[in-house]
């Protein structure tokens, strides 16, 4: 027989019963987010997210850059970390970059190529690595990778470096001549786009003319020229240097249509994907959907691509929302897609020891169902320590979840009570403004005094201040303790005054009156110094109280001895005090 019960949203306790013996085991659906790189992006991501909400999504472009920076920083800083985690973060950065340039970035002239080139150079550092390797060889031009290196540099638009390498080749002069004249967008600021296009067309015409007439010594030189002329076959031949279709696409565009706009990217992409394989991977689908400006689909695909991790979907959805790329349609789940992914991300965080407070912040930003989920989640956050409980309490207060804040206090109060710490229980009950509990616990403390004859640990009462006024019983407890302190300090008159006022006020539980009366015994008949401490009026008060108790039958059977002792002492004190007092 098998059974299960949930611990958190992703952890389950599985129980197996077999022939009378029962075993328990935890089953977890959680993805391990304990690696340093994950913690980094979770915390940093939260900072950027909070900033965006505070600035109401203004200047969303720079916030998107901030996300990219943190992802890049994570990949660089945690170099020696878990490989799998790093790969995923690199994938986040790639998807993010494409989405940024397509949905968020303001591109001068709409030209997307400079952005893509930078992206490819960052993700594929192999050309520069190859360059260092070749240059450090004794005879670079003899190095087996020499020509491949030049091609890979050209594919990433590293023109200067390619020129330097080509100079030492036999056909170098002509090729270098062309390359030196190649118009580059980064050098063309201050001129209009159409001027650039004209220059560039003229340049490529010259390349094609050279191709017709050239008579190169080396075949590789011809291939270089084919690249400059934008011949697809040569690009395809060197696809292994590109490694991916989007790199190939970027390289090809550099030599066919460098002013390509964001809008035409999808068309260029679909040609390239088939070069590498005959089917599309999930990642391919994400990038292509982005190029079609289908933000909704991008997010849906990200959810399934990054199976158990909602980091990317959540932060990306938020940015897309603020960039006004999502239309806010309601899903079957009953909320917008932005809220859907944020809720899922927050659900992962809320039950984690390290990130629960971040989870609260994300839930709060889900205006439709966030508070509802918090109401369900917060009671399930384990409150293992006073400190944690205080933090959860503060978080609830900060966000106006007063009922939940009160609930946290009540849970802690119950815990303390069951752990045998009535004082602590009292403090939490006061914080919860739970009068019924405050009164009940005060009475329990008083009852235990009757039983054990002593108080344990009531120093906290001194710090309660005006809180004591919340409950009569608590006030009584405080004053009763004050009475004991006065007796201990030898201030017997003050103690007597207080005691009598307590008896008169009937503030304490009815069954406690007898204890108060017993407490008067040391103060009667002159006490230890023989001095009369209690006046006749005060003695009358106590005698009346004793009589009241007998009339109302508040006394127990075993108390008759006590009653006699008290009565005798009071009568004696009355006589002595009357003798002393002036008429």
């Amino acid at each position, binding site marked *: *027989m098998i059974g*299960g019960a*949930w611990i958190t949203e992703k952890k389950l306790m*599985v129980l197996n019963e077999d022939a009378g013996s029962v075993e328990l085991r935890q089953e977890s659906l959680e993805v391990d987010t304990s690696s340093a790189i994950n913690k980094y992006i979770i915390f940093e991501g939260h900072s950027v997210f909070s900033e965006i909400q505070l600035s109401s999504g203004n200047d969303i472009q720079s916030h998107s850059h901030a996300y990219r920076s943190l992802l890049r920083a994570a990949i660089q800083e945690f170099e020696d970390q878990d490989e799998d985690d790093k790969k995923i973060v690199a994938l986040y950065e790639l998807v993010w970059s494409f989405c940024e340039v397509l949905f968020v970035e303001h591109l001068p002239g709409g030209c997307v190529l400079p952005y893509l080139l930078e992206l490819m150079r960052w993700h594929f550092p192999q050309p520069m690595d190859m360059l260092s390797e070749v240059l450090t060889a004794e005879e670079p031009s003899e190095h087996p990778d020499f020509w491949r290196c030049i091609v890979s540099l050209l594919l990433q638009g590293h023109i200067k470096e390619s020129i330097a390498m080509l100079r030492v080749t036999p056909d170098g002069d002509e090729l270098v001549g062309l390359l030196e004249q190649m118009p580059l967008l980064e050098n063309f600021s201050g001129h209009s786009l159409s001027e650039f296009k004209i220059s560039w067309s003229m340049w490529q015409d010259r390349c094609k003319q050279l191709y017709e007439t050239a008579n190169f010594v080396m075949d590789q030189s011809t291939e270089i020229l084919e690249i400059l002329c934008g011949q697809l076959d040569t690009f395809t031949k060197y696809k292994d240097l590109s490694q991916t279709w989007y790199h190939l696409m970027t390289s090809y565009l550099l030599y066919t249509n460098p002013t390509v706009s964001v809008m035409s990217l999808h068309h260029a992409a679909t040609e390239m994907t088939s070069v590498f394989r005959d089917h599309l991977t999930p990642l391919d689908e994400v990038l292509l959907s982005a190029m079609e400006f289908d933000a909704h689909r991008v997010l849906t695909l990200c959810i399934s691509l990054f199976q158990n991790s909602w980091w990317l979907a959540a932060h990306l959805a938020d940015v897309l929302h603020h960039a006004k790329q999502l239309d806010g349609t309601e899903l079957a789940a009953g909320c917008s897609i932005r809220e859907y992914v944020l809720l899922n991300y927050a659900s992962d965080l809320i039950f984690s020891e390290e990130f629960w407070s971040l989870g609260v912040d994300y839930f709060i930003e889900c205006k*439709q169902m966030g508070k509802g*989920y918090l109401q369900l989640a917060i*009671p399930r956050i384990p409150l293992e320590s006073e400190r944690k409980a205080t933090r959860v309490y503060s978080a609830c207060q900060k966000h106006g979840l007063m009922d939940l804040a009160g609930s946290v206090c*009540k849970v802690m109060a*119950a815990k303390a*009570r069951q752990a045998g710490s009535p004082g602590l229980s009292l403090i939490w009950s006061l914080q919860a403004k739970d009068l019924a509990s405050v009164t009940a616990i005060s009475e329990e403390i008083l009852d235990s005094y009757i039983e054990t004859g002593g108080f344990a640990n009531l120093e906290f009462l001194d710090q309660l201040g005006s809180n004591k006024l919340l409950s009569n019983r608590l006030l009584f407890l405080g004053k009763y303790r004050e009475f004991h302190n006065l007796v201990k300090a030898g201030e017997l008159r003050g103690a007597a005054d207080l005691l009598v006022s307590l008896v008169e006020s009937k503030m304490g539980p009815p069954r406690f009156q007898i204890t108060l009366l017993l407490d008067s015994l040391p103060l009667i008949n002159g006490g230890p110094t023989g001095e009369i401490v209690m006046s006749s009026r005060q003695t009358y008060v106590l005698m009346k109280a004793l009589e009241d108790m007998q009339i109302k039958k508040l006394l127990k059977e075993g108390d008759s001895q006590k009653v006699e002792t008290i009565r005798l002492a009071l009568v004696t004190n009355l006589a002595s005090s009357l003798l002393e007092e002036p008429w």
Partner: protein
Amino acid sequence: AVVSTQSTGDKSKIIKRVAWAHPEFGQVLAMSTPQEITIWEFTADTGGTWTNRTTPSISEPRHLEINDVKFCPAYSGVVKTRNLELAYCTGQLDSGQGQLKILRCKDSHLLKDWEREKEVSWKETFTCLDWYVSPDESLIAIGTVDNSVRLYEYDSSKQDWSFLDTIAHPQNSKVYDVSFAPNPGRSFHTLAIAASYLQIKSFKIEGGRVVVMREQENRVCEEENRVQVWRLSWSCLGTSLCTTGDDGLLRMWKNSTKWECTRKVKWNGVEP
């Protein structure tokens, strides 16, 4: 921590159901055997012990069996009433009688006195129950032996419970377990029903009747749903459901366009 050990071999003493009270009352547990319910409290001093607070226990006559017991839950972290409430249901297959009883504890610190607040009878055995509580409404869903789930509602103006409506008619089957999904503020209820197969029903209450809705979204993937379901458990936020089935497997379910089984667990951890 061991609560109590009884190995008398007496069938009437088998522990059938266990329910936790809300932590605002501390660690309090209700245990039910076919004939009686006992309430236990955990005290952490002296190493920690569980003490039976209900002496005498809440009990039923021999011809009735206690089938399920549940404490009144919190609504969204807020315990609805200061007092503890407990509901349990009884039934007897042969005689066909069923009863729902709701008890209230007068002193939640002592846990001793449980007074009967409401008693409802029906002609069929009640097999299982679950509460749903919110500031606006209180409901109890009860599974029966005659293939249906009966819904009872609390009327705060009359301060009384009454029968509302019947929902769901699983074919030819006894209902073994019912469970309301945690509600993060949706305008409808969702109830999971364990019977000869898993059923999920979302509904609203309109004009004193139950109106079932979202039937498309609540379809359950058929392939994995051919097994008798014994017990249900919703995750804290209600995004996943776990069921235990007659084939000895634990299944986890999630809803995207319909309810799909995302994972199966066998005891030794090997996924079949």
